[in-house]
C-alpha cells in the first residue's frame, strides 16, 4: 500500500477521533473509550476496505457493516458523516431529542446503518444472516461486524459463531475490539475470557491477531480475511480503550462518560497533536 493512502486513512482516523470526542462532549453522555479504540479500524473499513456508496446507502450489492458493540456508535456516526452519508453538522445532534442520531445505532433513522444494535451479542447474528443471504443469492458482498471483547461474554455470540461455521461464511469478517476493559473492570477481573483467538479457531474461524492501531496490519488482515475461502474469519484487534486521548487511555471510567470543558480541550489537543502516531 502506498504511503499516501495510509496517511489519508490515518488522517481520517484522527478526524473520527475528534468527532467522537465532540459528540460525547456535546451530548454530555456517550461511550468515548470503546469508540476511540475502534477509530482506526473504522477508518480502514470506511475509507479503504468496504465497497460502499454514500450516494446509494441501500445498494443491494454493497458490503454490510454491523456495529455489534452498538454503544460505540459515535465512531460509526463520525465515519459515516466523514464519508458523506449525512452532514457533519448532524453530529451535533448526537443523543439529542431533536436529532436522528440515537444513543445506539438505528437503521430506520440514519442512512448507512445496516442494522440496529445495542443489546450486546445480537449484531453478530444479524451479520451472519446478511452473509447467508449473500450466499443464497450468489452475491459477492462482504459483511463486517465489530464486537467488543466484553461483548463476547454473551452466549449468543457463540451461537452465532456456530452458525457462521455451519454455513461456511467466508464472506463474514468478525472483528473483536480487544481493549481488555469493560464497565466493571478488566476482562480478567469481570469474568475472564482466556484465549479469544483459540476460542474462535475452535469454532471454525480463520483467525488473525493484530495491533488494532497499526494501519498496515489492519489493512493486511482484511486482505487475508478476503482471501480466506470456505470458512468465516475473525480478526482479534489488540487495542487501547480511549486510544488517542492521554487521560482516557486504558481507564475503565472512560467507558461511558463525557469529558468536562477542561477535559474536552485537552482531549481535542491530544488527538490533534499526537493522533494515533504517538504509540507506533
Amino acid at each position, binding site marked *: 500500500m502506498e504511503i499516501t493512502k495510509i496517511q489519508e486513512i490515518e488522517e481520517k482516523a484522527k478526524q473520527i477521533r475528534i468527532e467522537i470526542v465532540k459528540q460525547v462532549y456535546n451530548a454530555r453522555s456517550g461511550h468515548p473509550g470503546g469508540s476511540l479504540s475502534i477509530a482506526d479500524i473504522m477508518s480502514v473499513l470506511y475509507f479503504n476496505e468496504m465497497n460502499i456508496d454514500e450516494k446509494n446507502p441501500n445498494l443491494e450489492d454493497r458490503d454490510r457493516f454491523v456495529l455489534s458493540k452498538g454503544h460505540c456508535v459515535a465512531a460509526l456516526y463520525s465515519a459515516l458523516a466523514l464519508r458523506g452519508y449525512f452532514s457533519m453538522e448532524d453530529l451535533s445532534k448526537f443523543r439529542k431529542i431533536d436529532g436522528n442520531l440515537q444513543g445506539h445505532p438505528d437503521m430506520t433513522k440514519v442512512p448507512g446503518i*445496516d442494522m440496529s*444494535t445495542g443489546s450486546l451479542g*445480537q449484531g453478530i*447474528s444479524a451479520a451472519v*444472516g446478511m452473509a447467508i443471504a449473500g450466499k443464497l443469492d450468489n452475491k459477492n458482498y462482504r459483511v463486517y461486524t465489530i464486537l467488543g471483547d466484553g461483548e463476547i461474554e454473551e452466549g*449468543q455470540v457463540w451461537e*452465532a459463531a456456530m452458525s457462521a461455521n455451519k454455513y461456511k461464511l467466508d464472506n463474514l469478517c468478525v472483528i473483536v475490539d480487544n481493549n481488555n476493559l469493560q464497565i466493571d473492570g478488566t476482562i480478567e477481573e469481570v469474568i475472564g475470557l482466556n484465549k479469544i483467538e483459540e476460542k474462535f479457531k475452535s469454532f471454525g474461524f480463520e483467525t488473525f491477531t493484530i495491533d488494532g492501531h497499526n494501519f498496515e496490519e489492519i489493512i493486511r488482515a482484511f486482505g487475508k480475511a478476503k482471501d480466506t475461502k470456505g470458512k468465516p474469519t475473525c480478526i482479534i484487534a489488540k487495542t487501547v480503550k480511549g486510544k488517542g486521548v492521554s487521560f482516557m487511555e486504558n481507564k475503565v471510567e472512560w467507558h461511558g462518560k463525557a469529558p468536562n470543558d477542561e477535559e474536552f480541550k485537552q482531549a481535542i489537543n491530544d488527538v490533534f497533536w499526537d493522533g494515533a502516531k504517538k504509540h507506533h
Partner: protein
Amino acid sequence: MKLDKKIATRQSYGEALLELGKDNNEIVVFDADLATATKTNLFAKEFPKRFFEMGIAEQNMFGVAAGMSTCGKIPYVSTFAVFAAGRAYDQVRNSICYPKLNVKICATHAGVTVGEDGATHQMLEDISLMRTLPNMTVLCTSDDIQTRWAVKEIANINGPVYLRLCRLATPIIYDETQKFELGKAIQFGNGTDATLFATGVTVSVALKAKEMLKEEGINVRVVDMHTIKPIDEDIIVKCANETDRLISVEDHNVIGGLGSAIAEVLATKAPKKLERLGIQDKFGKSGKAEELMHYFGIDCNAICEHYKQGMQL
C-alpha cells in the same frame, strides 16, 4: 363446525408454508431443532436451500433471521412459543421489532394444551409479551382453514408478526370459502345473553359451549378474535352494547392476554364488566390436553358452568 375432522394448527402451518414456498422464492424458513414438531420439516424437505436449521440456539436464530430480512428475504421462524417469545424476547424486541424488520415468528406449542410436557413448555405469557411490543402484529388462529389463510396473509405485511399456533388437534370450524381479514374478528350468532370472546384453541370450545347453552334456552354469541393486535375494537364495543354479559376464554394467563386486550378496549371505549376465563396467573402442569383444559377451567363445561353461576349472582 366439522367436529369429526380435527387438525392441529401447527400441521396446517407446515402445509401452508410449503405451499407459500412454492409461490414465493423470497420465503426462507428457520427452525431450532424442532422442525418435526413445528412441521417446518415439510418445507425443509421441498426447499432444503431455503431452510435453515440453526440448532438449539433460538437467540441467534431470531437475530440471523433479522439480518436476512434486511436483504429482502421473508423469514418464517419457528420454535415452541416458550422459546420464541420467552427465551428470545430480547432478540425479538431489539433485533426485529425495533427496526420493524420483516420477520414472521410462527410459534407452536402455545398454552396448556401442549399437554404432558408440562409447565416449562406450556407458554402462557406469549400474547402478553408479544402484543406489548411496538410494530408487532399478533395473531392466534383457531382452525386449519384460518391458519392457512394467516400463513399467506402475513407475508403481505411488511413488518414483524407473531403467529401463535397449537399442538392440540382441534375441529375445523370454517368452510374453504370463508373470508378472513386481518384485524377483523368473526362473530358466530347474534345471541344477546352473552358474548364469548375466544382465540386459538378456545374458539371451538366456545362454539360447543354456545350449543350446550342453547339447549337450555340461553343465547350467546361467539367472537373469534384471530387478530389480537391490532385488536378489533369495533366488535368489542358492539358486543358490549348488544349483549348482557361479556366473557373471554383463552389458553393463556388472564394477565396480559386476550381478556386483558379486550378489557383495555372496554375501559376506554365502552366500560362494562368482563369475566376472564383462562389460566389464573398460574403455571401449567402435566396431563392430557383435554384434562388440562378442564382443570384450568377453559373447556366447554367450565364455560357453561361459569355462565350459570353468574346468573345466580
